[in-house]
């Protein structure tokens, strides 16, 4: 009996040591080789969007109500969005399909969230249209043979911010903001592009986009430019004119530039939009949430402070009220905190403020199992059991209560997780997960760890006075 308890103790100490090592801040991680197996892991804490800043959006297919979107188009859209997100160069982004023609996108730590959202969510249809004899001013909304603005989704009636004069040539007079009733012929579209890269205009040193056409695109372009010298060719993105250069001579090389009033970032993002094709169905943002980085750091500091204070109060209370078992429960609680937190690092769990709150809540609940057991023990001792027998009886009797009550909390966590998933609220899911994890780990520490500690203390025979176990009087045979 004693042997087994001692072995358990050794096991517990090992687990506690490893857990603490992993859990402490700035943990160096595990880098070693055992029997030829190399373990080279760092265990950083994954911070949620509300901690490190970033944006989360819920994109939805922007089609008239009741239209059925086939899963093929949705999958294609998901793929394109994913490629664009990866091209943005964000670490640990998330792109996931959600129910109801929706896509969840998370971009932690992104510098310009609004631009990023536009880059990934916009349809990205590039068109070269025949503008005829009059150039179109940038920002004009047009309808082309490939469709009008409504096919792009909600383009919005206001002009784009990239305003300015037509760059390549001097126009006579710019056209009005929208060119109604006129359907422009689309000569080429983005699908005729082979590559698109960011470059700099030789003369103006402004950022522009260099493109190379596919062989069929080269032919179309060469045919058009040959037949339309001195006419204007407008380049539009999502039905909005970017620029309206004049065709000076036939272009047979199959390459060219797109100029406009872009900043370098805007040019880069335009290239991202072009690179992976245009979206087969337009998307719109139905839910978005972005947090700047400054809020998060302060909130973490405060949460950690709150957690430590809360933990301190609970530890003190347990000692005062339950004395010796209280001290043991406190040790078990500290081990619980270390193990749970190291699991956060190992899995890894993305930590949000709500998740931290869940963790702090679970610390308060973790002692619950211990309290149940101790109260039972006190009862058993009052009714005459020996100390040793009281421990076993206490654990056995309390188990059904512990199991049933924690189970209801787990059911709640399950439903909370589902609740959050329906509208992409990862914060709620994070809370549910951390709480559930905390409950499960607390079950283990209460049963295994507390029991081993108690048994060892009792077996050592040194601590016998029932008053040290929280009983007020010494009973007959309670030794």
């Amino acid at each position, binding site marked *: 009996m004693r042997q087994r308890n001692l072995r358990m103790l050794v096991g517990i100490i090992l687990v506690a040591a490893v857990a603490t090592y992993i859990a402490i801040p700035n943990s160096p991680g595990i880098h070693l080789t055992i029997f030829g197996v190399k373990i080279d892991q760092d265990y950083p804490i994954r911070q949620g969007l*509300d901690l490190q800043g970033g*944006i989360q*959006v*819920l994109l939805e297919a922007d089609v008239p109500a009741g239209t059925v979107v086939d899963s093929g188009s949705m999958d294609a859209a998901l793929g394109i969005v994913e490629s664009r997100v990866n091209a943005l160069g964000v670490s640990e982004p998330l792109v996931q399909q959600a129910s109801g023609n929706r896509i969840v996108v998370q971009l932690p730590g992104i510098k310009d*969230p*609004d631009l990023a*959202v*536009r880059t990934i969510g*916009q349809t990205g249809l590039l068109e070269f249209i025949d503008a005829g004899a009059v150039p179109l001013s940038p920002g004009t909304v047009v309808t082309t043979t490939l469709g009008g603005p409504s096919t792009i989704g*909600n383009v*919005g009636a*206001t002009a*784009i*911010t990239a305003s300015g004069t037509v760059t390549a040539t001097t126009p006579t007079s710019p056209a009005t903001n929208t060119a109604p009733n006129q359907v422009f012929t689309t000569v080429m579209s983005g699908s005729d592009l082979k590559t698109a890269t960011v470059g700099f205009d030789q003369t103006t040193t402004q950022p522009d986009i260099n493109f190379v056409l596919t062989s069929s695109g080269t032919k179309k372009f060469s045919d058009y430019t040959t037949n339309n010298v001195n006419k204007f060719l407008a380049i539009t993105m999502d039905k909005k004119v970017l620029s309206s250069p004049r065709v000076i001579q036939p272009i047979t090389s199959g390459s060219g530039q797109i100029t406009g009033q872009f900043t370098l970032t805007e040019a880069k993002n335009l290239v991202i939009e072009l690179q992976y094709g245009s979206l087969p169905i337009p998307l*719109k*943002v*139905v*839910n*978005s949430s*972005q947090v*700047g980085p400054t*809020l998060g750091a302060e*909130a973490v500091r*405060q*949460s950690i402070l*709150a957690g430590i*204070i*809360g*933990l301190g*109060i*609970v530890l003190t*209370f347990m000692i005062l*009220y339950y004395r010796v078992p209280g001290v043991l429960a406190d040790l078990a609680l500290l081990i619980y905190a270390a193990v749970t937190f190291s699991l956060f690092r190992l899995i890894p769990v993305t930590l949000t403020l*709500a998740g931290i*709150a869940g963790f*702090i*809540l679970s610390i*308060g*609940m973790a002692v*619950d199992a211990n*309290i*149940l057991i101790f*109260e039972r023990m006190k*009862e058993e001792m009052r009714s005459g059991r020996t100390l040793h027998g009281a421990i076993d009886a206490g654990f056995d009797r309390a188990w059904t209560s512990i199991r*049933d*009550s*924690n189970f*209801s*909390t787990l*059911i*709640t966590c399950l*439903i*909370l997780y*589902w*609740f*959050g998933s329906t*509208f992409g609220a990862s914060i*709620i899911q994070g*809370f549910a997960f951390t*709480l559930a994890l905390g409950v499960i780990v607390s079950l283990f520490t209460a049963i295994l760890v507390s029991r081993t500690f108690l048994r060892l203390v009792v077996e050592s025979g040194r601590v016998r006075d029932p008053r040290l176990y929280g009983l007020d009087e010494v009973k007959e045979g309670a030794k």
Partner: protein
Amino acid sequence: MIDIVARRYLFFLISAIIIVPGLVSLVIPPGLQLGVDFTGGTLWEIKFDQPTTAAALTGVLTAHGFGDSEIQAGPNNTFLIRAKEIRPDLPIKGEITADFRSKIGSLTELSFQSVGPTVGNEVWQRSIEAIGLVSVGILFYLWWAFRKVQRSYAYGICAILALLHDAFVVLGVFSILGRIIHVEIDSLFVTALLTVIGFSVHDTIVVFDRVRENSIRHLGEPFTSIMNHSLLQTMGRSLSTSLTVIFTLSALALFGGSSTRLFALALLVGIVSGTYSSIFNASMLLVVWETGEFRRLFRRLRPAGATG
């Protein structure tokens, strides 16, 4: 030995006193201040680098068609704007920001949240569904856990009634807070409510567990005394557990950041209520049920055929 059960009608009265003001506040419109999660719209928190007024912001917003937005001024030139939905993927957001910069001055965006109307509706629906699901799930679980007891559904129903009591206490408190200091409820509040429900049952089960055990041990004794014993035996434990959770939550509410403060408060109110309802509501309801007092109450209200 204290006879708690004998005073059960007193405890029903106390519960009523606690819950009625909240219910009244809930019923009179607007019962609850709904956040953008439910109504749709935009919450925008901006910090300007120089002092400015809400009126200046309103000016800019009106020029873009958002003149009816609410603006709350905070410390350090921080402003919280609540407006109709401003979609971040459309140019409008960039335009408003540019106008803020040119007309007022440099700024830092602290947070931005925008919810479309469909999603707002959905959150509302899903919240109700989730609450319903949790209640049903728990009812089934209790029915199964207590299946060996006679009339186990009684346990389940009394637990659910206590749980509803807790939910309404929390809702009532936040309804009143909404009136006084304009506190809004959002999806995180629903999360707190669901957690409270889970915890309330957690607590109630421990009491009922003991009742079940004592029913077998003290077969033949009147139910009122079985319940009394059970309550006295489990009270120490119930209070202790709730106390530890209340400690950690209070620390969170007082020292944690402002974003989790309301969340922690909702949980706190709910758990205090949950502890009270496990001991003084769920159990008393079960007594009233099991002893048939419920039926006798109704019989007394009907003059004919009253047996007293």
